């Protein structure tokens, strides 16, 4: 796709990209790690929300974070695009590197991070703007000038929404159904041509049919993107993901507050059939959580 390539090169030049994009590794060659996480803990003030997370996220795979409520999986997800920076009291300890670049180095501008690491939220949150303007927002704030029709069409097609909305691009994004709104949010996220998509329980507000469409979409687009998804739904993790991280909570004896921690991280098949840790087995077989 030469058109795509030129657009990528153009966006890279405009953003002053510090990280070159890489093509998927050929079969047989180990997938390259996009994120390397080691010994991460996240605090809100004095409260430690999650501790001891070490894992690597591989390119062009879907990595699922599962676990009971309060286990820190969403908190962890928000570390990858510095979204926790929006909370005054949040603090991240440990190392998170993105293609070898320390994401929490003081020289790193979170705005640049978020342009290459897109996010889809739990509740569909389209802007109260037209469908077209929703999708064009990301490229515009990144400095894209001129006609964005092609970018908008490509992103909407990438999110499998184009056929449903092509005749009403000027209508408000809020006029769509819940499932359509979430696909609009996915289109909006991929319009900036990110390398990674973070999805925070993207289907929890949707009915089973809309959920199925989003899951199909994720599997379709993983050739182009690296996806990390937080989900409460174990079947969803089993259906779509390549690798799964299981988090759980432990109660701090002194403060009686819950801290999340990573229990086990492995291929999805292994997590759901022959997990190493008893806690994982109890969770995936439904005996706990």
């Amino acid at each position, binding site marked *: 796709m030469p058109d795509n390539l030129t657009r990528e090169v153009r966006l890279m030049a405009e953003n002053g990209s510090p990280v070159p994009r890489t093509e998927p590794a050929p079969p047989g060659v180990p997938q390259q790690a996009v994120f390397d996480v080691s010994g991460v803990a996240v605090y809100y003030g004095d409260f430690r929300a999650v501790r001891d997370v070490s894992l690597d996220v591989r390119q062009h795979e879907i990595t699922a974070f599962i676990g009971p409520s309060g286990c820190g999986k969403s908190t962890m997800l928000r570390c990858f695009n510095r979204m926790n920076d929006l909370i005054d009291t949040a603090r991240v300890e440990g190392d998170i590197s993105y293609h070898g670049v320390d994401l929490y180095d003081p020289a790193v501008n979170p705005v640049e991070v978020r342009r290459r690491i897109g996010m889809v939220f739990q509740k569909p949150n389209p*802007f109260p703007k037209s469908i077209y303007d929703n999708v064009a927002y990301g490229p515009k704030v990144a400095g894209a000038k001129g006609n964005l029709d092609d970018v908008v069409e490509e992103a909407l097609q990438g999110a499998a929404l184009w056929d449903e909305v092509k005749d009403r691009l000027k209508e408000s994004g809020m006029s769509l159904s819940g499932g359509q709104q979430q696909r609009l949010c996915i289109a909006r996220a991929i319009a900036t041509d990110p390398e990674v998509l973070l999805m925070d329980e993207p289907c929890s507000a949707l009915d089973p049919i809309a959920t199925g469409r989003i899951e199909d979409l994720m599997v379709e687009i993983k050739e182009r993107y690296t996806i990390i998804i937080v989900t409460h739904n174990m079947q969803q993790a089993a259906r779509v993901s390549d690798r799964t991280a299981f988090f759980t909570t432990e109660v701090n004896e002194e403060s009686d507050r819950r801290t999340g921690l990573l229990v086990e991280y492995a291929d999805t098949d292994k997590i759901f059939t022959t997990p190493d840790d008893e806690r994982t087995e109890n969770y995936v077989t439904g005996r706990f959580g």
Partner: protein
Amino acid sequence: MTSLASNPTSYSLEDFHGSRSRMRKERIVRAVLFTAASTSIVISVAIVASLIGEAWTFVSQVELAALWTDGWFPRRGMYDVKTLVSGSLIVTVIAMAVAGPLGLGAAVYLSEYAPATVRKVVKPALEILAGIPSVVLGFFALTFLSPVIVQRLNDEATQFNIAAAGIGVGILTIPLVASISEDAMRSVPMALREASYGLGARKITTTIRVVIPAAVSGLVAAFIVAVSRAIGETMVVFIAAGATGGSLFSTDIFRPGQTMTAAMASQAAGTDQVRGAGLTFQSLFFVGMLLFLVTLVLNVLASRFVRRVRQAY
């Protein structure tokens, strides 16, 4: 009373009457509360009625030529309405030029930028500004704004001038603009900001392209309420703008001037009788009627916009 105990299959109507004295109390409570709620309406109607009577006397008896003369000198039978209306308009424009940017800037800062600790200090400080009596602000306008700011901008400005009065009214309305605008912006869901930040937008971009458009009806409402307040403000203009008994028509902001409110106050001040020939007394009701209509229209507009902001997302 039949027993509530064992047999639920046969009831008579009387079982459901309940206590009569309790029902009477309910009715009394409802009547008292209704009176409280309706008093304000009755008062509003009474005010309008009292205005209409005298205003009508004025309109029906005044010579039309007297409404378009060189100035507002009711004691001499010169009722030039445009002097007062333009005076009010100029004061309001100056006030909004001061309160609009400062109030909106304060609101954006408090809602989007200020850390919780700063907001805890700045917000009450703004509310203190809102609590300053307007007569105090009037003296501030006359003794500080006029010599220190206005006369420095234009050394031919008189001590009493419209500009100082306008700035004073503007200061008075800053807290109003800031507080309503901040409420409107804070009610924009956090999810919209997160969506914007998640796409790599900066804070200022998020504020200008997402938060302000989503809050725009609330911001317009803030502006309209402030305009309505500025038009109705009396004391600051009365003290700082200078023209007491009357005023020549003038659009020079560095000279004394007269607004609708100050015209009414200056005629009625210090005496139980409004002195002056002919229709002086009635003319004040006519001006009051005008003021009432202008602020009524503005308030209706504002509440429309506020209702829209609630529907937006």
